[in-house]
């Protein structure tokens, strides 16, 4: 009786989940229905693009690639549940998960237990702390993300003081902390280091406070729409300090939200060179617009890149493509990717992470650093 019931209930899920046969599946889990839905969705769109291309080119030795898109709502509990779901599904050979560090850390335990190759988009240094050999991060971690801007601010801009604000989320606080450390190491002075609420829209109180400190730089560690609103109110309240933000802000919406005038001069860090820097990126941007008729999200390029890394590994694994072989091949990755060469060190971190700083100039992001 109980048996029947369980089979009925849970079996339902299994059936719904069961794949069209003989496809190679790549799982991905990210926030699709909470406040971060924009990021999660555009990120996964990026992967979809890479996979479509691979399929157009004949797939992996004849087999079609399928992207299984799942919603973890940025919730660790659901992250681990999904991890288990992917682990149990033998047709899933690799995963791109997760988006939020807080989800990746617990889920990586699960993926590691079943030896499923995991490529993550979470930038928190802690993610790779466990040293799992099936976990890879083809993007720069927060050390890079927070470090480079500090160097730029001190050396290029000759800034002396900074006020740092973060949104009390794993990512925002993460990069803010690194920025703070580097800025102080470089001899700069941090006038204040304050947290706001991620869901906030009114920062006027904090900004009014910052005004009394009048720093050269204001660094905001957080995501959209917070960044845009913060920048807007910063200018509305008449603060002239140079504004810094991390890659979630690399989005046209930053300019629309803050208003072109307000946004002008803001510095945003991003890991890819300008979309017009090389033909790959031009094509990517074009294809993305074609397939999803909108501008790529800040993480679309990353998602594309992460998928590409896995597809490469699968290709190299050849006929005997299994989770194990993919892990082996991923380790040997040497891909000239969308955002530069991807190679992993023994911890699965990107060997030579790149970071670019963009300045907002008349409604667009213009490469500011490094000057090529």
């Amino acid at each position, binding site marked *: 009786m109980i048996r029947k019931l369980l089979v009925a209930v849970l079996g339902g899920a299994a059936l719904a989940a069961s794949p069209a046969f003989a496809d190679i599946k790549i799982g991905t889990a990210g926030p699709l*229905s*909470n*406040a971060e*839905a*924009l990021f999660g*969705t555009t990120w996964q769109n990026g992967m979809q693009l890479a996979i479509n291309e691979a399929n157009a080119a004949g797939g992996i030795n004849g087999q079609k690639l399928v992207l299984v898109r799942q919603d973890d709502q940025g919730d660790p509990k659901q992250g681990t549940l999904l991890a288990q779901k992917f682990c149990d599904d033998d047709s899933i050979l690799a995963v791109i998960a997760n988006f939020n560090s807080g989800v990746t850390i617990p889920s990586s335990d699960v993926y590691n237990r079943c030896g499923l190759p995991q490529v993550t988009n979470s930038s928190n240094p802690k993610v790779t702390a466990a040293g799992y050999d099936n976990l890879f991060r083809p993007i720069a971690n927060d050390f890079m993300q927070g470090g480079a801007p500090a160097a730029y601010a001190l050396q290029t801009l000759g800034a002396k003081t900074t006020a740092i604000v973060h949104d*009390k989320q794993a990512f925002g606080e993460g990069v803010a902390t690194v920025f703070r450390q580097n800025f102080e190491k470089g001899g700069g002075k941090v006038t*204040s*280091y*304050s*947290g*706001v*609420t991620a*869901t*906030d*829209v*009114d920062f*006027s*109180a*904090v900004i*009014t*406070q910052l*005004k*009394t400190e009048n720093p050269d730089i204001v660094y905001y560690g957080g995501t*959209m*729409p917070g960044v*845009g*609103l913060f920048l*807007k109110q910063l200018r*509305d*309240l*008449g603060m002239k300090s140079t504004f810094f933000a991390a890659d979630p802000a690399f989005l046209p*919406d930053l300019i*629309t*939200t*803050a*208003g072109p005038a307000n946004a002008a001069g803001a510095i945003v860090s991003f890991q890819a060179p300008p979309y017009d820097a090389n033909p790959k990126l031009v094509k990517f941007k074009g294809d993305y617009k074609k397939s999803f008729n*909108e501008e790529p999200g800040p993480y679309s390029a990353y998602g594309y890149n992460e998928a590409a890394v896995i597809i490469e590994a699968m290709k190299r694994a050849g006929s005997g493509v299994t989770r194990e072989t993919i892990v082996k091949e991923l380790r040997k990755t040497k891909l000239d990717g969308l955002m530069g060469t991807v190679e992993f060190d023994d911890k699965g971190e990107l060997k030579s992470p790149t970071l670019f700083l963009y300045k907002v100039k008349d409604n667009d992001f213009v490469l500011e650093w490094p000057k090529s």
Partner: protein
Amino acid sequence: MTGFLIQQLVNALTIGAIYALIALGYTMVYGVLRLINFAHSEMFMVGGHVAFFLLAATASLAGGPIGVLVMFAVFVATFVAVGLLGVGIEAAAYRPLRHASRLAPMLSALGVAIILQNVVMLFVSRRPLPFPPFLPAVSFKVFGAVVTLNQIFIVAFAVALMLALAWFVNTTTLGVKIRAVSENPQTAQLLGININMPISLIFFIGPGLGALAGTLYASYYGIVVFSMGFIVGLKAFIAAILGGIGSIPGAMLGGFMLGLLETFGAGLLPMLTHGLIGSEYRDVFAFSVLVLVLIFRPAGFLGEAVTEEGMVYKRDF
């Protein structure tokens, strides 16, 4: 320093006005049905979106400030549209549950909130949409504080709406009916007042005001996004409680008070404690005040006192 304080005061009043407008919706519904209407926050969000698309339709998104006429046309249309949505939701999701436990409608309201939010996310936009300012970005310097025309307008308009509502409820026949129903539904019913009509009316006005709040909010902060409802809604609800749930002037007072509390928590606490307590303690501060108020004056500031027995309006289940 004075500049700093005045600036904070202005900030507080602006956000407070918006809280107050939303709080009205909560408090009116609660006054009559003793229902924590979790869906109200989404009325606010939907309102913002409706206004956005109305403006888009009137091609006023071209940028630059919008004519006053268009502006009020948009306000009225938004009010009506979302008001009707509210009435519909009440009829569909709450009315069938009137005779059920008190928790049931509260949770079905929760379900409605989830639905609205996801519908907007899936079928309207995941992206924050840029919302044009209604007024030119004029700003005045008052004792070193920056006050924008927009801020003045928001506070003035909100207050005007509240006064209008107060007048409506206190003097018109309909208003009196509403009050009767909220005082004591049974007696009202026994007196032969058809309680459905006043209730529907409340579910028209409440969401309507919420929608206007959403519009003001959108134009003030310059965006609308599907996820903007929940937190603001929760805050506004707290405002309603602070002022005295069920009391309309209470909601207004509560809104402005919460605005002040927050600005104080975020702006002054760090300064007074020399960064010992950072701005991240703002909400802790706000919630603590809420808890203390409720413990020592459960009726809030303007609500009429409640006895311990009076707090149980009806079996919870």
